[in-house]
Each structure stands twice: as C-alpha cells, then as structure tokens.
C-alpha cells in the first residue's frame, strides 16, 4: 500500500525577474524549525514553525505566500444518490493525484496579492490546486476552445473537485489561511504549519513565494519529511511486508489473551 513519495509537483514558475540594473535584488529566505516530523505512539499532530526573512531594498511593498504540499496520492470519491428512496453510493471516481496535505498561508488574501491567472499558473491556493482530472476524461474542442477537459462527470466536475477539497479541509489536511504569515519584525516573518494526526507520511515540499505588485519576484524551496519511527514503524512495516505472518501473530496473540484471561479468572 505504501507508495513511494511522488516527485515534486511541477511548478512551472519562471525564474524571478531580475533586471541587470538592480544591484540590490529583492529576495526571500526561509527555514523550518523542524525538517523531520516523527510519528510515534504519542503522535497527535505536529506544529512546525516556518520562519524567514525578506530582503526588500525597494519601496514597493512585498507579500509573502507559504505553500506546503504533502505527497501526492490518488483519491477515490463517491457521491451518494437517491435511488427509490434509498441513498446509495455512485461508482467511485478516481482523481489520479491530489496532494495528501496542502496548506497556504499568506500576508493577505491570495486574491489581493496576485491575479487569478498568475495563481493558477503557479498552483497557489486551494482554488488553484492541481487535482488531476478523473481517468475517464478526454479533451475536446468545445465552443471553439481547444483542449477543454470533459469527463463523464460533465458539468458536475467542479462539484466533485470542490468535494475533494471540502472533505480534506474537514480533516484539517487542506487549509488556506489569509493571515497565516505574520511579520514579527521588519522583514522577519513566521508561519505555522499544522500537521493533523491523519497527515500522510512521506516527503513534503514547502515553497515560500515573494510577490510584488502581483508578480512573483523570489521563491525559496524547503523540504519536510514526515515518517513513522520506533514501534509504530516496525508494526506498520511488518504488517505490509509480511502481512500473512502478521495476521497469524494477531490471531495467536488474541487466542493467548483469551486463554490467559480464563486461567486468571478461574483461579480467583
């Protein structure tokens, strides 16, 4: 079941514009308080602080946007529909890849920082999250526009997409906080990354974007690893590598406990 962490999402952002005449370039640098999150028996989620500095010699105000993505995994979604008075599940729809964790934190609402097209291109914001279209999709020319993605979901596609985001938001896996980036001092900012207990294990990618007048001017990339450690990892790996021996062990343990209990209670 454990899949290898997928490669980082292709961020097709252009290199930040740096004109040759600018000596003091606008830059952002960032780091995480903890680049490894260990999941053990006491794991109840984790809170990691991302902090950084903005070098902004110009007079133009800059906005910071932090994006953290968890490992991609396929998502299967069903919709309940009413058939003859009974609520039944539809056939599941497979979304090829959606990040297992996604959060944005910014200094202002994303819509005020950059234009729709820019955010969509960078894949920044829950509305612009890249969730690959369902498997049955095909591209056609419609209303003179080429490459329109249609699937058997048809017009409902947006509903399904929104449902993925809504369900993940409810599980605290997706989150967009418009005031998540807090400036503690001139040029010094911090943002909190809250990982819930259900956060998937694997490699996480954090991007810290610096926007000026709606344009990305600098980006800093960080990685974060969430992994099971100790007994938890041993059990998980045992259950997945040697599933049959694990099952037999479970049964033996259960039978032994039952036998032990009956011995203890008979003596009393």
């Amino acid at each position, binding site marked *: 079941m454990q899949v290898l962490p997928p490669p980082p999402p292709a961020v097709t952002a252009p290199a930040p514009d740096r004109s040759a005449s600018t000596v003091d370039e606008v830059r952002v640098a960032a780091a995480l308080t903890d680049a490894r999150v260990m999941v053990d028996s006491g794991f109840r989620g984790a809170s990691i602080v991302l902090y950084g500095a903005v070098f902004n010699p110009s007079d133009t105000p800059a906005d910071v946007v932090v994006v953290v993505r968890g490992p991609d995994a396929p998502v299967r979604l069903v919709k309940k529909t009413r058939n003859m008075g*009974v609520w*039944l599940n539809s056939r599941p729809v497979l979304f090829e890849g959606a990040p297992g964790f996604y959060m944005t934190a910014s200094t202002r609402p994303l819509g005020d920082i950059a234009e729709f097209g820019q955010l969509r291109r960078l894949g920044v914001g829950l509305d612009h999250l890249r969730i690959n279209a369902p498997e049955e999709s095909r591209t056609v020319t419609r209303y003179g526009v080429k490459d329109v993605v249609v699937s058997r979901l048809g017009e409902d596609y947006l509903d399904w997409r929104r*449902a993925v985001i809504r369900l993940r938001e409810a599980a605290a896996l997706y989150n967009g906080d418009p005031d998540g980036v807090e400036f503690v001092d001139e040029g010094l900012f911090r943002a909190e990354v809250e990982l819930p207990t259900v956060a998937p294990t694997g490699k996480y990618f954090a991007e810290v974007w610096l926007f000026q007048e709606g344009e990305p001017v600098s980006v800093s990339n960080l990685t974060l690893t969430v992994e099971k450690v100790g007994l938890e990892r041993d059990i998980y790996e045992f*259950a997945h590598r040697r599933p049959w021996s694990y099952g037999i*062990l479970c049964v033996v343990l259960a039978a032994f406990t039952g036998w032990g209990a009956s011995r203890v209670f008979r003596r009393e």
Partner: protein
Amino acid sequence: MDIYLPIAEVSVNWPLLVLLGAAVGFVSGLFGIGGGFLMAPILIFLGIPPSVAVASQASHVVASSTSGVISYAGQKAIDFRIGAVMAGGGILGALLGVELFRYLRLLGQADLAVALSYLLFLGAIGVLMLYESLGQILRRVRGEVTPHKERRRPLWLYGLPLRMRFPRSGLYISAIPPFALGTFAGVLSAIMGVGGGFILVPAMLYILRMKAGVVVGTSLFQIIVTTAMTTILQAGRNQTVDIVLSTILLLGGVVGAQYGARLSGRFRAEELRAVLGLIVLLVGIQMGLELFVRPSELFALAPGAVD
C-alpha cells in the same frame, strides 16, 4: 492519554477504548455472544476507518470466544465433530467474504453492504428474538404453560447425502446443512466483522435441532476458527488489521466478558433474550438508518485508492 494506531493511522484515547472493550466484553459474557455486532458500529463512530474496525475486531472476537470455549470445553459442552464441519464451512465462507468485501470496497459499495447486512440480519433476528422471548415472558406472567414445541427437523434435512453421526448433538444428519451454515457465518464475519453467533445459535437450535446444551459452546468453537481465518485473510489481503487497536480492545474485553458471564446466571434466559433482542434490533436500525436519511455530506472518500 491518546495513542496513535499504526495501521488505522489515527490517534485515539486509549482508556476510552479499554472501557469500550470492557463494556462490549461484559455484554458478550452476559448474553453468551461474541459482541462483534456492537463493537464495529462504535469503533466506526469513534472515527476508526470501517475497514480497519471490521478487520481488527475480528481478532477481539477470537479472544473473547477462546475464553468462552475453554470454559465450555471444561463442561464437555462442545460437539467438536459438528463444530469441525461447520468450521470447514466457516473457512470457505471467510475466503469468499474477504474477497467479496475487497471487491465491494473497490466498487465503493462496502458501506452499502455493511449497512444492508446490519439492517437485514440484525433487524430480522432482533424482531424474532423479541417476539419469542416477550411471548414467553407474557405466558409466564399469566401463569400459562409454555406449549411444548415439536422437536422435529425439517424433512429436507433427511433427503441430503453425506450423512454423518454427531452423537453429542444427538444428530444423524447430512453434513451439508452445518457446512452451509458455517459458510454463511464466515461470509458475514468478513463483511460485518461479527462472529455470527446471533445467526448460528438460532439456526442450530431451530433448524438443526441440536441438543441445547452443546449449542453455544459449539458455535463459539466455530466462531474462533472462522474469525481467526478472517483476521489472517484481512491482514494478508487488505492489511487492515491494527494489532495495537485489537490489543487495547482485548485488555478490556476479556475482563468484561468474565464479569458478564458471572452475572448472567442471575437472570432468566427469556429476559436476557428480550434485552438482547432489543439491542440487536436497535443496532440494526441505527446502522440501516443511513440508507434512508439524507446525508449531510453527499460526497465521501472511498478507500482502496492505493490498492
């Protein structure tokens, strides 16, 4: 006081789970049942994924049935011969049931299968038990004599081949009906995570007409074999057995079961059956209700994406 479950990948309050295990164990000891049908809905309610809940509690049923079987074996109240035939059916049923459950999960219809099985089987059994036990209580209150039931098996039981002698049960019948009964219980154990005692016991009493004294012990023996098989298959095929979860449930469960069993002697059998019938019926209705009530969230994530 929270503990992270490595397979379910959620964190739960472990004292609450121990108490839950003890409460279900108490009920199972009191009524002489596995208690699986109570455990699965509560675990799901606590936020444990249904597939993990159903698979992990099967091993809880193994433990509570083991301590039951040991005490019944001491009283020589188990017919191992017919139990072996039924267990053979149970193994076949577990194989079929786990594959069926896997297929339904991929179709996204596992919820429906679980809800429907609970509604149909628990609903029907609950109504029957209530009807029968309330009738008996009413007759006792009115001072009427319980009409003597005809101890006659359905005639078709005699027409089948492969007849075997089961001296302890007082039977000389074909091996096919007990085998089929075991298979059916095996399928249920995979889909509902239950031992199937609530189906087995009435069927053994009223259809096979086994001697009443050996019915419960023999059914527990069959349940151990079936649920052990289910646990191994769920672990091997679906990797959904959480050993930490089942161990926590066991700790409370075995203790609760012993106290339940001690207390059961203080009540009349038909009163116990009436209460159990009511519980069974309520759980069945509760699980089936989701089929008829408009859900607050129309979409749901289906498991099995990574399979």
